[in-house]
């Protein structure tokens, strides 16, 4: 079976290219005082891969990580000290919810909802985001008939 982890299967080229794309987000985030180093970008990529493995998912792009960074960079609860680790947590929560909701929500919708909860009711707490707000959202989504995937 051909290896399905797109990050791994495309080898170092994609990794390097992906890291560059993550680093390019600095152009927008630096105005909020948020800058990732190359090591942190690599760390985010590796953590993202680990989340995918943990949740048994396959990713074909780095859009989720890029969009997560670009959406959350203006949050009042983001700070430069734990910027990378917060992004890692958010990416992990994102894939967790995708799985738990049985893919009943699109990537962009989920990122935007996460941002809304994070900034408002969760006040920057990723624990509350995952265990309270998104747990409820997941339950609602599983009961929903509005389902964009054909099967599963």
């Amino acid at each position, binding site marked *: *079976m*051909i290896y*399905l982890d*797109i990050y791994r*299967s*495309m080898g170092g080229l994609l990794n390097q290219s992906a890291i560059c794309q993550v680093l390019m987000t600095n152009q927008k985030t630096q105005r909020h005082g948020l800058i990732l180093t190359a090591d942190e970008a690599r760390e985010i990529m590796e953590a993202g891969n680990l989340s*995918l493995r943990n949740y*048994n*998912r*396959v*990713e*074909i*792009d780095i*859009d*989720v990580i890029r969009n997560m960074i670009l959406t959350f960079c203006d949050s009042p609860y983001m700070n430069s000290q734990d910027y990378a680790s917060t992004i890692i947590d958010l990416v992990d929560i994102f*894939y967790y919810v*995708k*799985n738990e909701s049985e*893919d009943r929500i*699109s*990537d*962009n*919708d989920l990122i935007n909802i996460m941002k809304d909860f994070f900034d408002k009711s969760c006040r920057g707490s990723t624990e509350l985001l995952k265990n309270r707000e998104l747990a409820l959202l997941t339950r609602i989504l599983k009961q929903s008939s509005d389902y*964009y*995937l*054909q*099967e*599963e």
Partner: protein
Amino acid sequence: MNTGIEKMTFSKKTPIEPNRYTLSLLDYGSQIGVIDQHTIDQVQIGILSILKGLIIKYTQGKSTSLKVETTESILVSVLYSLDARLSGFPEPGDAAEYLRIQNIEYIYQEGLELVNSCCMATRQLFQQIVDSKLNISLDAYNSTIDEALPAFFDNYDPIFSAQDTITSMDYPLLFDDTETTGIYYIEQYLEKLAMENYFCSLFPPDSVEKLLVNYGQIYCIDYKETLLNLFEVLLTNSIFSVLIGNKANDLRISPHQFELLKQKFHGLDQTDCSSLISQAIETLIEELNIDQSALSNYIGRYPALLMPRFCSALEHNNLMNVIILDSQENQPVDIRWNEGNIIDDEDFRLMVDQILECLDGAGKAALINSSIHSLRDFIDVLEADCLFDDEYIALFKTLGALELSILARIVFAEELRTGGTDYSPGSAEEKQLEMPWQIEFLRYWQGLSSEKIRDIEYHMFSSFPSDGSSEF
């Protein structure tokens, strides 16, 4: 210059698996050094690119990730189309060369077109089968054509799940290829079903139905609910019908003809038996004017399946399980139970009360035998909790071999169905018998002499008269 592919050395014994052709070609080609790493990398990158496009299509662009199982299923679907194209080359070497020089996306599109074409052609074939469907009361046959196959065509998806054969097609073919998947499985299934249907249509419908009734009686089952292959049942009787001098489309074999058949095979070794059967098949093909070579070849594969069963039955004097005798031709039998004489509920309750009042087994047996005249009532009495321990044995002792054979068919139904005349009665624990009368019957059976058992078995493996007296 290194072209990436040396002259291919795939031999005739090349272990290319037909049902995972592309991966197997890459695996083996790289093992023997005729497909280089660059080609493998290009193929892998190409497949992942196709996969990426399909995931976006699958999620309608709303997600860039999917569960591994879903992704794998789409990947297998991609490989299914690639296999469709690459396995079309006469030699694996040609396929490997094509992989090297041609863009994988292009090969995929070619394969997908082949799968789509096969799907259209198979739909047409299915319509022909629907139009020429046999009028027989076999549930599995009817539900496969009326429900399962239409559901398959409604749901089949060549892009995202080309390999799926999810359907409840219960009707078994004589020679099915269960290794194949997706539309190619359905294609081979329908091609064979069309041949089988044509063959079955060469026999008079009423004699087909009659043969099935006799088949059900032999195995003590409701043939309508049985997963039997009609083609095999008809072909078998037709072969032996020819051997006894009947016309090929005459399915009736009388007990007298059956004895003649036994004599015909008596003392012959396996080669001689096989030769006789092969000759009969040739005659049958000629008499039935079968001019389709595919059908002739299909029938020609049957002796390999029939011979072990036939030889075993011949050796154990159990041919009655292979050849279905015509029940009307059976000798008249004397049976005390007649379906027309069922006691009404009130009288039945009174009789059970009388049985319970009776204190000894012999008395109970006499009462039952004088009052009961149908098998249904007899079984009801056995299950009415009015007999205990040895009282069952006392009753069984009063029954003749024919009546005992009917009870034996009930108690050993599963063993007879699976083992035929080679059935083994087993123990009560093994059989997980629950009814006390069945446990006692088994105990009674185990105490019988081999001569008595042979006598009963004679009736067990004979067809019953068709007056319904054996049914309840």
